[in-house]
């Protein structure tokens, strides 16, 4: 899995052009000999396969190589950016789960009546926002017009609000619908009627008996969503100038900084794989039928 991803990325990135040319830019007149020297210093004169094998050898011992720009070890760059991205990703996912579960349940319970209609309309609007547009609008209103929140950077809690809200709102729009559908299915079950017949309150019936049964499809979906979330974060990080993997990747692409980009992609794919593993573990926790005898 990791091999497949890194191989494709390493290959594709080399189609974008020669990094030596980028490096040499701004240095005034450059001769072909200068370029050749740069290539040799960066190891770009070797064949693609040799470069890739070199990258893999480094990977095994946790060495991602050095950035073409300034020579900082890639692992240092990632080490600085990763916590920022993870913090943002989990904050968005958490925000979306916390909002979408009660709203989705409310929509399911009041199916066809006005709360349901309202929630579905808002969800449709949320689905129609492009994330960068929402991000820019938030900056425009909350930072520039009312000057309530810092427009960019990562300093303190207040700087989290806008980026997390941008991602969170868009995730919530889909999640609400998902929660609503799975909840409607679950509420039709006989054991829900049995729970009501016991005299349990609505809250206990919905949040104890129904929600845990909904959680299998929900966990599956939230896990899948995490991958998409990491993709979307690149754009949002850019808008808010968030010092995370997205910004790092963006800069690496602009500069054709192969080692950095390869490193970022490898880390992202490792994260997606581990999320899938966590999802499988979570199944066992919520559903006794999945557990081994």
């Amino acid at each position: 899995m990791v091999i497949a991803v890194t191989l494709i990325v390493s290959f594709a990135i080399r189609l974008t052009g020669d990094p030596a040319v980028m490096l040499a830019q701004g240095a005034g007149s450059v001769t072909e000999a200068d370029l050749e020297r740069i290539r040799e210093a960066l190891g770009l004169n070797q064949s693609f396969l040799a470069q890739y094998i070199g990258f893999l050898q480094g990977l095994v011992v946790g060495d991602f190589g050095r950035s073409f720009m300034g020579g900082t070890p890639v692992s240092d760059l990632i080490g600085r950016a990763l916590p920022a991205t993870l913090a943002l990703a989990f904050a968005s996912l958490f925000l979306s789960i916390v909002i979408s579960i009660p709203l989705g349940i409310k929509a399911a319970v009041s199916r066809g009546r006005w709360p349901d209609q309202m929630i579905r309309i808002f969800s449709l609007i949320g689905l129609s926002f492009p994330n960068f547009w929402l991000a820019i609008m938030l900056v425009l209103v909350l930072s520039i017009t009312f000057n309530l929140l810092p427009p960019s950077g990562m300093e303190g809690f207040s700087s989290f609000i806008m980026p997390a809200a941008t991602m969170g709102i868009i995730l919530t729009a889909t999640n609400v619908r998902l929660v609503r559908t799975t909840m409607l299915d679950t509420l039709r079950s006989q054991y829900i009627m049995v729970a009501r017949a016991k005299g349990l309150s609505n809250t206990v019936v919905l949040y104890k008996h129904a929600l845990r049964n909904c959680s299998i499809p929900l966990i599956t979906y939230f896990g899948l969503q995490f991958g998409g979330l990491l993709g979307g974060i690149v754009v949002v990080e850019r808008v808010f100038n968030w010092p995370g993997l997205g910004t790092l990747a963006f800069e690496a692409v602009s500069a054709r900084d192969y080692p950095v980009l390869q490193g970022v992609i490898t880390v992202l794919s490792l994260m997606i794989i581990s999320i899938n593993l966590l999802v499988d573990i979570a199944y066992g926790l919520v559903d006794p039928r999945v557990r081994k005898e």
Partner: protein
Amino acid sequence: MTTTPALSVRSLSVNFGSNQVVKNLSFDVYPGKTTAIVGESGSGKSVTSLAIMRLVEYMNAEITSGTIRFYSDANDAQPQDLTQLSDKAMRKIRGKDIAMIFQEPMTSLNPVYTIGDQITEVLVLHEKLTKEAARVEAVKLLKLVRLADAEALLKRYPHQLSGGMRQRVMIAMALACRPKVLVADEPTTALDVTIQAQILTIMRDLQQELGMAVIFITHDMGVVAEMADQVVVMRHGEKVEEASVEEIFARAQHPYTQALLAAVPKLGSMQGEALPRMDPLVVLDGNIARTLGESRQQDTARIDAASVVEVENLVTRFDIRKGFFGGISHRVHAVENVSFNIFPGETLALVGESGSGKSTIGRTIQQLQESTSGTIRFGGRAVADMSRAEKMRLRQEVQYIFQDPFASLDPRKTVGFSIAEPIRTHGLLHGSKAIRQRVNQLLERVGLSADQAERYPHEFSGGQRQRVCIARALASKPKLIIADEALSALDVSIQAQIIHLLMELQQDEGLAYLFISHDMAVVEKMSHRVAVLHLGQVVELGERRAVFDSPQHSYTRKLLSAVPVADPTQRRERVLLQGDILSPIRKVGDEPQHLPLIQVATGHFVAQEESGAERLAS
């Protein structure tokens, strides 16, 4: 007898939107007594039970008028009217004073919580017990419903329990707060007869012990005769008759009740008769119960002719793979060494409980399922030796009717198309006009009209759909029809009509039936010979009269004694049948012992019983 009822329903009406499903219903139920509400599908009996619990509001239905008075004791001068209570006040009564048992034990327990969690929940809620005290009480309750090993059971999840055990857990849960009124909605319908007998006995004993008033909702007149004191008969949302159980069975007043009772097959009604008997149908014509047709003997079996099908030492097993590498750890021994034959015009019944392998035998004969070993012969030729063309022809001669007529018809095709399909597939007729004529003729043959060919399955009722399935089966002019629980999903009056139709077709076309069923009373009515299956093996095989009148194998006797008889005067103190249904799943290498069949009379074979020591070991 107390004169104060526990619950008194007056002029109750329930609506689904503008559709009134319960109309002006009144009845009482007294402490320690059982009022049964009987009716066929659509009679509003289940909605009534949910209305008493005020659960209809969660199904988008509402109580539009009437009162439901609940008397907390015999001196209660101011009973609460449940229809007027707030949701909060109602929740205090639900599960505490009035509890309910539902039909489907497989789905009525929450799969993600332990049995213990689900029982203690009620006790903590209503009795304000601590967790620990509730646990102690839960153990007592599980013992009350006669579940062994109650302590360990608390920690188990519903999927680890059999249907019968789950229903007992459900009863324990309902009885947790010693309710005054118990509403039981078809509590045993989904269970095997021996398990049903256990559950009914437990319910009756506990009712005596706790002095509960029980509202028992059912479609099964046999269960009514066993359980009820008072009977309310419902039809299309209205009460058509109410009387004591003895009155209803002896002197039913309303023609609907009369027709309903006439349709119920009664176990033992064929005693002494050699052949199946086709009884006249009692149908409701307006408001008069009319008798159609005459009683006649079904002398159709041609036992001198060659068998239609012969099954010899049939074995069908399924592998169960476990673990990452998928090694076979267990096997389902669905069919073990089964042999029988069917003559033209004969009905052979395969009876047994879940896991007895009866359906697998049917599927194996129809080549829907591969056998592990053994021979199946049609017209003397083994299926294994047949060419593809011969096997194709066999599919024409053997037809299958399934339990669920809706699921076995394509919802997007007209029934005419579905009936014509086998005619086209086997190239029996050519030209659309000829095919259409044949379809029309088949529809009329099964009691439908030719102009219904253009309609879709959802436009038909359950009984009509089963008729369409029979028409489709007849389309390819089969010699053998395998009817796999084909009557089980139907209301009794419809069931009687389909039995009538099947027997008529047998008489006219000389059809042989392999009749797979768990319903002993229907089997008694219809079949010439009976094979009783247990754990994939035939334990008794013989003429129906021999098997039913003098059952030899202990399992056959157990099965027969478990069937509730639709006659309250025959109510007997039943010995409590112990134990769950045994599982046909065994470890690899642990092969079941094949029990040799011994002929006890001409054509009557009985399996040798396993000795006690061997039983314990297995």
